[in-house]
């Protein structure tokens, strides 16, 4: 076995091993735990960076392990895998820093950081899996690893949210399992090969292919929070802020969206999907979810709940983009995978900071908060304006590609949906920004809540949102650069459409 074969496995294990060690550490071993966490996160990020450099020069990274006949565990690096692995490893690092600051002095940190690492292992595994079975294994692994994080606080509400979460995700996993098994029975073990294995079956088993596509889609739609299977997401926001940030930006919801992209482009392949005509229900559901999530967000007074509904809406941009055939639209879908992650993690970090430093959870209480937390609210403003789609923040680029792609495919109604969503986003985000910066703070209240911390949040809570906000701006401002998410998305899409 050569270095290139081991490296995907090392990337996955770089968080698994610290996670397992953390379980055996003493609860009070802060320093060891912190070092382990950060070392793992840095190692993973460096390795993904190295793989990216190698990948650009044409190196092949692949790890294979035969479990039994016709059942192979395969980790493989392709452009899409790199994009998602890069996103999760970079955001894991910042979220780790945030979590260390957030949980300072609280109990059960061993359990939290253990499962936190395992959860990221699962999400990197999803990114790097090279066939459907490996993908499914990590997908289910993620469900189980995130449950302890959701119920971390142990309150009745959290436990209820956890039950709801498990109900939805295990149910979705079961449905997905049926789809995976069905497809394997039909066509043998499925590699991510852009539909090469399935296209031969088009003549004889078109109906089965269609049916299995929908079955798998339903399975994936749970984590991708597509209506009506999104119910778990706004409820799961009772989890602590770092978990919400991870859940909403990288791990769970992205696993669903990433799965949909894999399903459309790599399992079926875009040509087969178009030929089977299976994409339009996804487009309609996605469009409906976009509007629905935004409308529901307007009526939430709880800041995190409003953000959660915004996630429901924004995630469906990805589904909608994947459902519209055409290079531009696909680029938009794939790049939004990254952009939404950057912007939404910023927003959740900021919501966490507000709650931690001032104890405020409601939108209606945020008058003048910009004076107390100017940098946090600055980052929040960047994230929110990006969600609306204002240039030069990342969301602008996503919307640009999705809309032009929709017009290219002759579906102008999608542009109307996207612009409608922009307007709705403005309706639920701008009042927050206006209140924070321009309204008078209440005479009493948060001003003298915690006199020890005069200004801003502690740096460990402040640094992560500033970094992600900066990335949100630069990935939009320098979208045409060859290192940007957009350029990587373009490369991926070129492979999808031309290297059949």
């Amino acid at each position, binding site marked *: 076995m050569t270095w290139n074969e081991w490296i995907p496995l090392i990337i996955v294990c770089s968080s698994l091993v610290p996670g397992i060690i953390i379980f055996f550490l003493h609860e009070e071993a802060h320093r060891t735990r912190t070092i382990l966490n950060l070392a793992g996160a840095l190692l993973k990020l460096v390795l993904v960076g190295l793989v990216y450099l190698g990948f650009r020069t044409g190196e092949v990274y692949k790890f294979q392990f035969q479990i039994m006949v016709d059942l192979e565990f395969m980790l493989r690096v392709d452009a899409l895998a790199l994009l998602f692995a890069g996103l999760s490893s970079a955001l894991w690092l910042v979220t780790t820093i945030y979590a260390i600051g957030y949980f300072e002095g609280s109990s059960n940190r061993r359990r939290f950081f253990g499962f936190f690492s395992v959860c990221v292992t699962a999400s990197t595994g999803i990114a790097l899996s090279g066939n459907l079975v490996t993908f499914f294994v990590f997908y289910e692994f993620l469900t189980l690893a995130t449950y302890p994080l959701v119920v971390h606080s142990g309150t009745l509400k959290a436990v209820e949210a956890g039950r709801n979460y498990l109900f*939805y995700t295990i149910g979705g996993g079961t449905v997905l399992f049926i789809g995976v098994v069905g497809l394997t029975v039909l066509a043998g073990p499925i590699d991510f090969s852009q539909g090469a294995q399935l296209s031969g079956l088009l003549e004889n088993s078109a109906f089965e292919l269609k049916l299995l596509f929908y079955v798998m889609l339903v399975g994936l739609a749970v984590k991708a929070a597509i209506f*009506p299977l999104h*119910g778990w997401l706004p409820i799961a926001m009772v989890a602590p802020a770092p978990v919400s940030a991870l859940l909403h930006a990288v791990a769970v919801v992205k696993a669903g969206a990433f799965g949909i992209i894999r399903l459309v482009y790599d399992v079926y392949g875009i040509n087969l999907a178009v030929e089977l005509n299976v994409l339009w229900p996804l487009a309609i559901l996605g469009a409906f979810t976009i509007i629905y999530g935004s409308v529901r967000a307007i*009526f939430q007074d709880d800041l995190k709940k409003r953000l959660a509904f915004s996630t429901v809406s924004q995630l469906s941009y990805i589904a909608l983009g994947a459902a519209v055939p055409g290079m531009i639209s696909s680029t938009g879908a794939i790049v939004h995978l990254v952009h939404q992650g950057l912007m939404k993690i910023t927003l959740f970090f900021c919501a966490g900071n507000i709650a931690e430093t001032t104890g405020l959870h409601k939108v209606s209480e945020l008058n003048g908060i910009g004076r107390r937390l100017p940098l946090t609210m600055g980052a929040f403003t960047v994230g929110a304006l990006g969600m609306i789609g204002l240039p030069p923040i990342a969301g602008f680029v996503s919307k640009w590609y999705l809309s*032009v792609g929709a017009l290219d495919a002759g579906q102008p109604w999608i*542009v109307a949906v996207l612009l409608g969503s*922009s*307007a709705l986003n403005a309706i639920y985000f701008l009042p927050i920004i206006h209140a924070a910066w*321009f309204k008078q703070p209440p005479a009493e209240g948060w001003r003298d809540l915690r006199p020890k911390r005069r200004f801003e949040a502690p740096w460990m809570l402040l640094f992560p949102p500033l970094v992600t906000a900066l990335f949100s701006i630069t990935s939009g401002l320098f979208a*045409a650069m060859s290192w940007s998410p957009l350029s990587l998305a373009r490369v991926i899409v070129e492979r999808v459409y031309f290297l059949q």
Partner: protein
Amino acid sequence: MNWIILSLLPLLLLPCVRFCPRSARVTALLCGGATLPALAVALGWNVEVDLYFSDGLLGVSLGLDAPRRMLLLLAGTLWCAGGVAAAGYFREDPRLPGFRGFFLAAMSGNFGLIIAQDAASFYSFFALMTFASYGLVIHTRSKAALRAGRIYLILAIFGELLLIAAIYAGVQLAGSIQLAAISQALWTERGGGWIYGLALAGFGVKVGVIPLYLWLPLAHPVAPAPASAILSGSMLKAGLLGWLHFSPLTHGGAGEWAGVLVILGLAAAFGAVAVGLCQTDPKTNLAYSSISQMGLLTAFFGFGHASGAPIAWILPAIAIFAWHHGVTKGALFLGAGLVPQTRGRTRWILLACLAFAALVLAGAPFTGGAAAKGALKEAGTYLPEAWTGVVGTLLSLSSAGTLLLLGRFWLLCRATPTGSRVRSDLGWQFAALGALLVLALGGSFLLFRRFLPEMALKSGLTGAFSAAWPVGLGLLLLCLGMIYFKRNADRRAPNLPPGDLIVFGEWAARAFGNWWRSRGAGIFTRKKFDPENFVYRLIATGSGRLADEGEAELGRWNRVGVAFFVLLFIFIWGLQ
């Protein structure tokens, strides 16, 4: 490099606004000085080479052509004057840092959108200007300012959405993000007309076209005077530039929207005068005058689509008129802001300045205004025979209307009492006002000589009489009105609320809000309405009950027999 400096320098200065001293000199240096690169470029500093920055946004392309250079000159002049005036205006304002910040950001957007040549950076700068201006509008945080800000924001977002839709469609049609390629494609490919319509409406919010002008009479009076001078003088022209970018004028295409533009433009040109006369705040009055003048420009722009006039005429005529209106209106707004700060002899000097500016705007002979209107009139001669005279008459009548409206403005200014806190350092503000007045008088002539040499003489001399009678007519009407109201002291001029039709919009919004609070919201807040848990409830409780009941049912012995036979039947059927 100079392109980047001129558009981004104001943004780079943003961190200074918080930490710089609050003295007037620093404000003038910061807000006025940031315009210097733009002015230098507009006056010809190293403008030959376009800039391509392929890493930025979706590929940035910056450059200038002649009409846009004139707009850049206008923008640079107005922002500079505004910055200098702000130095005196905000002497004791605690929100000065905020004002400086929004001022610089909006300035960067305004400069950037003029030099942008690709759709993505154009839209970016446009949005920057739009949203940074919100901070200028609500500067005082008064109730009226917040209301104006809200309406401004709603209309601005509406406009941005239409505009970005037009850009998406244009980019898709052209297969390129260059604005030149987009406007080319609009008039060679099918479906371009609708895209143009979207762009007209989207930019129309800025231009102040009927019915999208509603924010204008609200926002201009509440913004601080230096800001409203720029809003009216330069930002309205940004919408005009947007129109030009998408218009068929440069490609000789037929304009399907010509008629709409002409009708809406003329309606605004004369309607705004009528509504403006019924206002009691001098700055609102000026705002309606802006709507009227922009309406004139809209109508002329529409005529340009229909006539066979060469583009070499129309564009300079539009640009010169824009310059003339921008500079003069800027002076008028600065003056209106000065009125409550002055008393005694200073007040009379100021009123003289304002009277002079009013005459220039109305196009009195031997002023830049006459030259600008002459340019429009001249370009009108390319219209079909029947129209030429009509255009000339309409222009003259509009001049008379302008004078009438501004006469009322002048009277309102004269009647304005001096504010309780008279500020002492008027020097900065008078300097800015004076500079703008000089430019209003002479600038247009210089521009003529540069861009339309053969027309300069004609408008300057032979146009004197044709420019004189409308002004006389306006003065006559004004005097008649004054005499009438003096004789009938018990009668008052009708009083319309500022923003006229917006009142109905707000009424509708309030009615909807009331309904929503009493009835509509109930749909969403009722306990039973919980779509998030729909699937959960349906399956978790529903299936449980079903399974329990089904189990109980199957437990009865007679059902077991039936089930057995059913299964047997299925298997036998399956074997065949």
